[in-house]
């Protein structure tokens, strides 16, 4: 039985080791969310376009990535990227850059499924109304369908973002310096791994739990408006 002693985790230690990692985890989450929603919406529109040559590649992309473990995807990109970019003369990617690219590409598939459901949740009459007003496809999509789809799906999109935030801990596989790594390094330096693993669990829990509470409140609000 080991005695737990958290006294070494002072603000200075946290600032020295953890803040950098926490910042990266948040940065990765936000950027992958924005990129993922953008790319995901595009993929969803491709899948709903009714044109085979757009539909098939998007479906293959989404279904393939969704059935591979994220860890494998991270490793694939990490190992493949140098080959792909060597021709362009770019070399030596930091694991953090790789993580950013991977998470945007990977999370786009999950966001695309959400957006697809969102677009389909908008009544067909809205589309017809748009066309009847003389709008073209882009205007109907951009001004009528997508704004509503976004609003309907906002809670689900945010819930997925919480999952994304948890998933960012998997950059452990390529050694990027995230929240988990920050605590781990602190634990190694002070020879207190038990306490730091507990602490990182608490930090993840507090962040994810409060975010999911916020989403729940938002959900209630939106439900009333509708």
């Amino acid at each position: 039985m080991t005695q737990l002693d958290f006294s070494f985790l002072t603000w200075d230690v946290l600032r020295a080791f953890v803040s950098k990692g926490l910042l990266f985890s948040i940065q990765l989450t936000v950027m992958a969310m924005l990129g993922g929603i953008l790319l995901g919406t595009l993929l969803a529109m491709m899948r709903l376009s009714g044109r085979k040559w757009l539909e098939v590649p998007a479906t293959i992309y989404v279904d393939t990535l969704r059935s591979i473990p994220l860890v494998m995807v991270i490793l694939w990109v990490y190992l493949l990227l140098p080959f792909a970019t060597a021709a362009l003369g770019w070399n030596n990617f930091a694991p953090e850059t790789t993580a950013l690219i991977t998470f945007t590409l990977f999370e786009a598939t999950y966001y695309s499924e959400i957006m697809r459901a969102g677009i389909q949740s908008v009544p067909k009459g809205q589309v017809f109304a748009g066309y009847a007003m003389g709008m073209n496809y882009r205007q109907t999509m951009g001004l009528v369908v997508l704004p509503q789809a976004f609003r309907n799906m906002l809670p689900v999109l945010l819930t997925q973002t919480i999952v994304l935030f948890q998933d960012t801990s998997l950059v452990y596989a390529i050694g990027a310096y995230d929240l988990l790594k920050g605590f781990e390094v602190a634990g190694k330096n002070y020879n207190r791994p038990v306490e730091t693993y507990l602490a990182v669990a608490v930090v993840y829990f507090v962040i994810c739990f409060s975010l999911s509470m916020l989403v729940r409140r938002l959900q209630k609000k939106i439900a009333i408006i509708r």
Partner: protein
Amino acid sequence: MPSWDWQLYCTDMVTEEVAPSCFGAKGYETYLDAMVHAWGWTMSISVLGLLVALIAGSLIGILRTVPNRKVALFGEAWTELFRNIPLIVQLFIWYHVMPQLFSPLQSVPSSVLMVAAIGLFTSARIAEQVKAGILTLPKGQRYAGQALGLTLPQTYRHVLLPMAFRIVIPPVTSESMNIVKNSAVAFAVSIPDLTQFALQSSEQSSFVQIFLPVTLLYFISAYIINRVAKLIEVYVRVPGILGAK
């Protein structure tokens, strides 16, 4: 560029000698042997983890619908706890923290800790589905059971659960595919699963020919579990409800 040399799968991992047969040659451990072995680890962890998740998840899901605030609160707390911490962190807690705090756990092999970690992690998700399944049943069913003089456990056993479990099979199916994918984090505690195999046996130059089959195996494993769950779904279907034929 990555090189292609499928002969690799027939060579011994240590001596780099070509074995007389690619699979199961005596005295050799070829890359193919190692990969099949690693697949076994991935599948056993997934299946055992799923078992833990189903048992714990159903129990917690039921507790969350029981008309007793304290019991329900315990269920809620369990779900929130295991849902809001990343799996890899939970795994480290099981692997690095628990044995330090509870010394009997020190003699437990890491694969068992992995099963516990992934099982309880998934149990929160299953509990969520089970709770939703029970709550979609009309309230009248519960009252009818009690009006007939059934005790609460009997009401659950004979009235609510037979329907609720059938309702939750499709979402639980997708959860069972997730467990195969999530099991890939086992590499972090040096369990010789597929991801660990991929990491250890691939060099920069030849990683594609290791990673491609490994990725395909994950694909196939998730597909197999999906098919099995679909068969169960068809088998337990109640005629007349929920899209039954």
